[in-house]
């Protein structure tokens, strides 16, 4: 599938002005807008480990530094480690009763790195968990972290004191009489309660040393063996230790993966929501443009020459369960409408909208950026529109050429089968193009979108909307002039 929709040949203009292939777009069916990954709100739904598929609540994940406690990764090539069983001869071979012991070690199936390489002792069968590699500087790091926490608290306290001074009048009885909790405690003869975090700590600042710890002399005298030195990737995978030699590598806990849901920015409806369970690859909501917007594929283009009308055959596919009508309009058509729209939107004050929405809007409303595509050809705009029947999965396998009674313009529609139609457009590359330059054609496609949202009881007919979007086709390079 990816080879058909993945190359950026046919691009749709997203609401934000970016051009994306249809497989990368979402379609919000509530506000009828195309949305791309850059103009939706991303939310973390659940955290899970990709290997053992364990689901972790976000607080627990934070506590575990977003890493799985069971699964380990190879420090050498970052693939998952698997455990391997081996038998070890008994300690005293003379003893006839001693049986060979079964042990487990970890092994990477990709680069064949094993825990034996770095001298991690094998584990006995039945024991679980590998020894954690402790950071030498743990105490120091904790002390620094505590210190900063205290600083934060101190600053907060100072800010609060400042606020109190600024307040002219007090309302609480305790404050008016001057009897606060701490004074009461003093009067009763109790020791003052102290916040442990507010106590002064004895953190000594780090001292820069004059001496270089590691002597670098051996670097100058002995030849470097590249196989013994870790790569930058390997060092950054272990930020606590950053080993420089391969014999200091240690298995890393696997990073957790995230399931995220995507939300339309303007109406806050979900456009994509996966099922919560990490075992499932299904979606609760998936409003991908691929299932709602007619797909366009280029069938053939004649060699492009300046000043010559070249035939362009494109295929239109209706992916929905409803019949649709497609009209090709000039590219400027949508610009004119949008300008009118913005004029209208600017005037009425926003009412009835939820607060969060208003907040969001104030921060997120932005005018779509300029579409970054240089249109290099004129497209002949057909006068008639094309009706595409609904998608029928069974018809895909039906070879008995069914006759469809559509009153097509034979000059426009070349071929038709079930929910697909091939139409012929004429393109004429512009004069100002240079030889070998890429030619981009653009037009506005209008299609009838049948809303699938359950409508109110009053009108049982599904609502229909005219939806318009800009399409940019990359037709290939200019081969010459007429």
């Amino acid at each position: 599938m990816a080879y058909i929709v993945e190359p950026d040949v046919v691009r749709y203009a997203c609401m934000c002005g970016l051009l994306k292939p249809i497989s990368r777009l979402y379609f919000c069916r509530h506000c009828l807008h195309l949305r791309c990954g850059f103009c939706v709100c991303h939310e973390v739904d659940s955290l899970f480990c990709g290997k053992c598929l364990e689901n972790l609540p976000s607080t627990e994940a934070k506590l575990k530094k977003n890493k799985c406690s069971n699964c380990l990764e190879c420090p050498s090539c970052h693939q998952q480690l698997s455990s391997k069983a081996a038998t070890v001869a008994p300690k005293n071979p003379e003893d006839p009763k001693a049986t060979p012991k079964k042990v487990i070690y970890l092994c990477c199936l990709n680069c064949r790195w094993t825990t034996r390489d770095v001298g991690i002792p094998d584990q006995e069968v039945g024991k679980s968990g590998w020894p954690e590699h402790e950071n030498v500087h743990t105490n120091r790091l904790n002390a620094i972290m505590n210190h900063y926490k205290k600083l934060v608290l101190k600053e907060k306290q100072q800010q609060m004191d400042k606020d109190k001074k600024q307040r002219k009048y007090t309302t609480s009885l305790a404050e008016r009489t001057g009897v606060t909790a701490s004074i009461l405690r003093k009067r009763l003869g109790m020791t003052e309660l102290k916040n442990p975090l507010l106590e002064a700590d004895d953190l000594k600042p780090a001292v820069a040393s004059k001496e270089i710890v590691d002597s670098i002399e051996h670097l100058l005298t002995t030849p470097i063996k590249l196989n013994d030195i870790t790569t930058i990737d390997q060092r950054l995978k272990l930020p606590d230790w950053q080993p420089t030699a391969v014999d200091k590598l240690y298995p890393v806990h696997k990073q957790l993966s995230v399931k995220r849901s995507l939300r339309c920015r303007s109406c806050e409806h979900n456009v994509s929501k996966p099922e919560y369970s990490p075992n499932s690859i299904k979606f609760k909501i998936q409003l991908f443009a691929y299932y709602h917007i007619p797909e366009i594929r280029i069938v053939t283009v004649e060699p492009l020459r300046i000043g010559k009308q070249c035939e362009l055959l494109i295929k239109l596919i209706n992916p929905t369960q409803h019949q649709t009508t497609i009209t090709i309009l000039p590219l400027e058509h949508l610009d004119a409408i949008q300008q009118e729209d913005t004029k209208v939107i600017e005037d009425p004050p926003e009412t009835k909208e939820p607060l969060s929405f208003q907040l969001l809007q104030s921060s997120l409303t932005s005018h779509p950026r300029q579409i970054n595509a240089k249109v290099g050809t004129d497209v002949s705009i057909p006068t008639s529109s094309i009706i595409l029947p609904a998608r029928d999965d069974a018809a895909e396998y039906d070879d008995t050429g069914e006759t469809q009674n559509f009153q097509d313009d034979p000059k426009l529609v070349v071929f038709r089968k079930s929910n697909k139609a091939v139409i012929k457009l004429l393109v004429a590359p512009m004069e100002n193009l240079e030889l070998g330059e890429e030619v981009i054609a653009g037009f506005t496609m209008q299609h009838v979108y049948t809303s699938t949202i359950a409508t109110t009881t009053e009108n049982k007919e599904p609502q229909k909307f005219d939806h318009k979007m800009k399409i940019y086709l990359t037709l290939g390079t200019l081969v010459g002039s007429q």
Partner: protein
Amino acid sequence: MSSKQTPKISSGALVCGDNKMHGDITFGTNSIVHPSCTISAESGPIIFGDTCIIEEQAKIIHRVPFYRTDKNPVMFIGSNNVFEIDCTVEAAKIGNNNIFEPKCFVGNKVTITDGCVIGAGCVLTDEQVLPKNTIVHGSGCKQREALDQPNPQFGLMDTLMRLLPNYHHIRKPIKKP
């Protein structure tokens, strides 16, 4: 050199019939050759050591680079080597205990010593000598040095020795005089 030469198979070796073999080829004892592999001794004889496994679709080609002018070059392959599915090996000198993983390619300018593992899909073409226990892995053909050589797969060999003759034609080993 006639291409219709029959391979010399030592006793105890198991060579399936349905494979392409050209030129002067010698198999050591306890070697196992699966069906549908290609062994072509174009530039000179190929000599396999003991207990080598050559799997399906593997291509072992003796093709000396054009600038080498040694007379009658011989391709030596040591013992305990495993050529996995669809690997292409042209290296003229191969030591012992090496593993060529599926779809790897080793060019004819490469010399392979002992205990090396050429990872799946890795391509080695430049003139080089792989040091002992080198492991080539990943899409970037990264190299690292292993602690010890990969273990010979005796369990697999026993199974193959038992099963292959049941389902395939077997070339007869040469009777020792």
